[in-house]
């Protein structure tokens, strides 16, 4: 390879590196700045606070999450709520929030892309489910 050939190769390599760096920085900024990530974190945080509030209630209750929940999948397991995007097997930007239930309490339920979701406390069980509509646009007896 002569001098000219090697310098052209280096210029192409440098251009590729610059393009790659610009692309990566833009994609990192875009992924963090997108509102869906913030919405997922916020939803997980709010639902975990709602669960803590439900635990404090001495009786049974049904409450509706007051925001739109059509974009995400909500999975409630015993000690955590996970909010992630549908379709993806593993969503790297899924939002997790942990909570502590009293002994013998259980929490479960999965809701995928539903317009409204409800949290129901019956005895020592908290269930996440789609709100059952009794009348048009009205959730079933929310408190």
């Amino acid at each position: 390879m002569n001098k000219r050939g090697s310098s052209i190769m280096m210029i192409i390599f440098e251009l590729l590196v610059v393009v790659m760096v610009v692309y990566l920085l833009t994609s990192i900024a875009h992924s963090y700045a997108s509102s869906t990530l913030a919405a997922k974190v916020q939803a997980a945080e709010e639902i975990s606070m709602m669960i803590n509030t439900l635990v404090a209630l001495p009786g049974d209750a049904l409450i509706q999450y007051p925001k739109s929940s059509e974009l995400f999948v909500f999975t409630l397991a015993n000690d955590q709520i996970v909010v992630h995007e549908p379709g993806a097997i593993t969503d790297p930007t899924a939002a997790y929030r942990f909570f502590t239930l009293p002994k013998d309490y259980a929490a479960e339920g999965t809701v995928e892309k539903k317009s409204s979701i409800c949290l129901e406390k019956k005895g020592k069980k908290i269930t996440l489910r789609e709100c059952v509509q009794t009348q048009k646009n009205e959730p079933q007896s929310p408190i």
Partner: protein
Amino acid sequence: MNHKAQFDFTRKTIYWMFAGVIITGVMLTFAFTLATYKEKLLAVPPELKAELVGLRFMYNSDCFAYQHKETKVTHPGVIDLKKFTSAQMNNCYPILKEKGTKTFNFRLKLEQEGSEIKSNSYYNKDDFAIFKEVLVKKGDEITKDRLIIYVQEKI
């Protein structure tokens, strides 16, 4: 390839080795800065979260709220002194020892009564306190008291 071309090629290769490390560092710092900024924007005050977790201590009969034996009616805001024990605290707020330092821990004190209990990973690091006016049921007596909920955040 002559000597000068060889030297140029080697020099650029070494340059890009260093540049690769620096560029990776810049990108990681950029991602970390954005993640920190996002966390700050979405942060919920720990006082609010601790208050919501702490509600159970006063209102839930599986914690310390008084429940009538026969009617099974729970009296929110009335602390049953018989239940105010460490064992009941572990039933009400059962955190695993290994996860205990990553979440809230509580030290509950009834001001007039003087009784005090702690959750199982409370290491006397009071970050802030929540004050609640309560009634205390001791035998047949009901007295006014103040429940002080000392909160330990993550360690």
